[in-house]
């Protein structure tokens, strides 16, 4: 009995010692913002991939020469001042004072030129811009010139492009990495420093405040203005299960969810410690994409029939449900953006099934089933294909819907094989509005045949208009060219816009200062 008691006492003391030794001392209080992003951070090179999570990572770590403000205007960011020569062939850019990389070395124009070159090798708008660039001329470590072959209105828009791929500035040694190889050095000059040693895939990515960062003096606006960091540390927690993420928010284990699913908003609204906030007023656009290589969609008339068969409301109701979070928008350009127009779309997208059937008859549609790819694992896309199938069938099409996970769809859409041999006719997806603000930026409007995105539309007229858009510098003329592209899109549809939808961040009430911007950013955010 004595032995047992002694053993018990010794065990309790040993356990207590283990607990004391293994529990770290309380750290100095620092404000830590814990966020569940829309995806786990897997790739940390925002130029190598167009994945949105890598783009968001880019905004934490890197800075940009220009940035888009809340009104959609492009404003200098790393650039202090810029001048455009009278002949519009020379852009002279001067960097702000005090810009430094996370390792303390100054940001130089050599770094910027190398970064622009790497970005432009991957980004379609960058490639378009480089088509106009004759040369870069480094004047001194703070000033460089872009020398153009001919005038273009693309330069500022491209360098201030808000979404993937964003022209982030990297040190020259990093920017000289082959664009098709992922970078291994994560030194940036942005408002946060990436803690590579604390990055655990499937667990968390950690960013700490960059103490050297010198924000602009202007107030923050969209992605532009002063990037003032008000928390010491931001942790992106990887919680793949939506319900668990919401439970973690309700329990106060995390402070913010970037994209909770719409069907769980009622649960969040019931909690008095949580609020929903739409941080991206431009939202997103649902899109139906054609593969023009395969019959019957090689015939523009058949594709026009789809424009008659569809209506946007059915798609938006079917997926989002709550009208607070969607808006029918009969425009290829987002509602609320400068180029928004309904021109050419009058009478279309109204589910005029008789007109659709008449067009199919005129086009000689032989009843070939449309192989429609249906993504089943992403809540914001899942119901789109069944709605499309229903409307297409009512409009006179035969439809063969193939269900698959998104990643399988991503691989299959790259195939040019006939639909019966593993190819496809159509699929539905969603674009962040910031990616489709104009005809050059909008990937699905690229109609350059083999060089176009999957679906491979091939139309000289669209390409000629996009080229005119790239060359034009007058805002009024830009608008009329954008309208002309849209009108042409109704004659030669490359894709169909299916309306706009909005998501909301779910925030603990002690989190304030989240900015309205096309990308989720964490400067200006406070945790009280």
């Amino acid at each position, binding site marked *: 009995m004595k032995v047992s008691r002694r053993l018990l006492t010794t065990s309790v003391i040993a356990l207590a010692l283990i*607990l004391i030794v293994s529990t770290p001392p309380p750290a100095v209080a620092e404000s830590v913002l814990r966020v569940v992003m829309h995806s786990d951070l897997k790739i940390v090179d925002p130029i190598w991939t167009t994945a949105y999570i890598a783009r968001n990572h880019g905004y934490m770590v890197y800075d940009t020469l220009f940035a888009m403000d809340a009104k959609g205007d492009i404003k200098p960011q790393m650039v202090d001042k810029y001048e455009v020569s009278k002949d519009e062939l020379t852009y002279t850019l001067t960097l702000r004072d005090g810009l430094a990389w996370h390792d303390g070395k100054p940001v130089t124009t050599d770094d910027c030129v190398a970064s622009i070159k790497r970005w432009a090798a991957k980004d379609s708008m960058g490639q378009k811009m480089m088509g106009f660039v004759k040369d870069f001329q480094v004047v001194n470590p703070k000033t460089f010139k872009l020398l153009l072959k001919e005038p273009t209105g693309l330069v500022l828009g491209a360098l201030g492009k808000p979404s993937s791929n964003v022209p982030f500035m990297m040190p020259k040694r990093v920017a000289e990495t082959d664009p*098709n190889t992922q970078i291994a050095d994560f030194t940036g000059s942005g408002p946060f420093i990436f803690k590579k040693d604390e990055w655990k895939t499937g667990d968390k990515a950690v960013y700490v405040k960059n103490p050297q960062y010198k924000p602009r003096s202007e107030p923050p606006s969209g992605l532009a203005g002063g990037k003032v960091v008000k928390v010491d540390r931001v942790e992106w927690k990887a919680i793949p299960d939506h319900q668990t993420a919401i439970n973690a928010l309700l*329990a106060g284990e995390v402070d913010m969810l970037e994209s909770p699913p719409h069907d769980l908003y009622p649960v969040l609204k019931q909690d008095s410690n949580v609020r929903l906030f739409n941080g991206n007023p431009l939202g997103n656009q649902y899109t139906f994409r054609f593969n023009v290589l395969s019959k019957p969609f090689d015939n523009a008339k058949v594709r026009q029939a789809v424009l008659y068969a569809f209506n946007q409301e059915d798609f938006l109701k079917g997926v989002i449900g709550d009208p607070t979070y969607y808006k029918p928008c009969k425009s290829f350009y987002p509602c609320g953006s400068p180029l928004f127009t309904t021109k050419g779309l009058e009478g279309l997208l109204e589910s005029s099934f008789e007109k659709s059937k008449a067009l199919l008859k005129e086009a000689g549609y032989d009843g070939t089933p449309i192989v429609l790819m249906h993504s089943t694992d992403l809540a914001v896309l899942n119901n789109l294909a069944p709605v499309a199938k229903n409307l297409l069938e009512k409009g006179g099409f035969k439809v063969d819907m193939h269900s698959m996970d998104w990643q399988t769809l991503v691989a299959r859409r*790259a195939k040019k094989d006939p639909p019966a041999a593993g190819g496809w006719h159509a699929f539905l997806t969603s674009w962040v509005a910031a990616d489709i603000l104009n005809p050059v930026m909008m990937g699905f409007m690229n109609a350059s045949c083999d060089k176009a*995105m999957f679906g491979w539309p091939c139309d000289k007229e669209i390409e000629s208009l996009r080229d005119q858009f790239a060359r034009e510098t007058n805002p009024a003329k830009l608008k009329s060219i954008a309208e002309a592209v849209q009108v042409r899109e109704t004659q030669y549809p490359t894709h169909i816009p299916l309306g706009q939808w909005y998501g909301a961040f779910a925030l603990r009430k002690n989190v304030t200062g989240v900015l309205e911007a096309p990308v989720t950013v964490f400067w200006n955010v406070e945790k009280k």
Partner: protein
Amino acid sequence: MLGYIGRRLLATIPVMAVVALVVFLMLRLTTGDPAAIIAGDNATSQDVAAIRAKLGLDRPIAQQFVIWTARVLRGDFGESFFFKKPVATLIAERIEPTLALATCTIVLAVAMAVPLGVVAAWKRGTWLDRAVMGFSVLGFSIPVFVIGYLLIYLFAIELAWLPVQGYQRFREGFGGFIERLILPSFTLAVIYVALIARITRASVLEVLGADHVRTARAKGLGDAAVLTRHVLRNAAVPIITVIGIGVALLIGGVVVTESVYAIPGLGRLTVDAVLARAYPTVQAVILLFSAVYVLINLLVDLTYTVLDPRIRY
């Protein structure tokens, strides 16, 4: 005995080779393209092709297999397509949470199930027996994720006793480590408690009717001594077998539990890698799981000799 162990270990080589070949082929024959996933939604076909070439995925499958096999034989599982890290490092980072979860679950399951099974057999036909068997049926019937959400709702949201999610490494503090393991372990243990308790009950019932138990009772031994010394030891072989199977089945169970509780373990790594078509990672993880499976079976077989001296290899 050592000869037997050596032979069994040698026999794992062809097993692993077949697993390697099947996994390699299945992954390549499954639709999906890691290059397209890496490139992202806005990438062009040219971008995807360039990345595919960079990763060596444009080579013939046979050539890819030869390259991979040669590397594996040298102990190199390659580099993750996505994470810019060697696959071995990635796996090493994820082993601790899975190992901790599996160990806690098995300890918890055995500690609960064996006494329950013994009591159910000892009190056969009573309300206690029926209650244990009723719980057992429930344990089999309710999906792991439902149990997980119910426990989270009760103990993390309503009572706020335990955290909802996450994992804390042992070296970061024992309190946080164990606190975060309680709910996932209970969640995962339910099905194993059901399984082990049923087998224990059946096995104990069989031994309870044996001659040596009657003799032990006739000698005047108490219930506790009869159960522990004469019944349980003789009923142990099937129980150990089912615990062994349970450990192997845990590999599947941790996938769901790690997702529900956001634990960055091997289960989550496998799911993420499969969804992303991260070939080197999936291949390495499946090889590891196969090796664990084979070794557990060997361990179970060796345990028989300890429990029953009549068994010899």
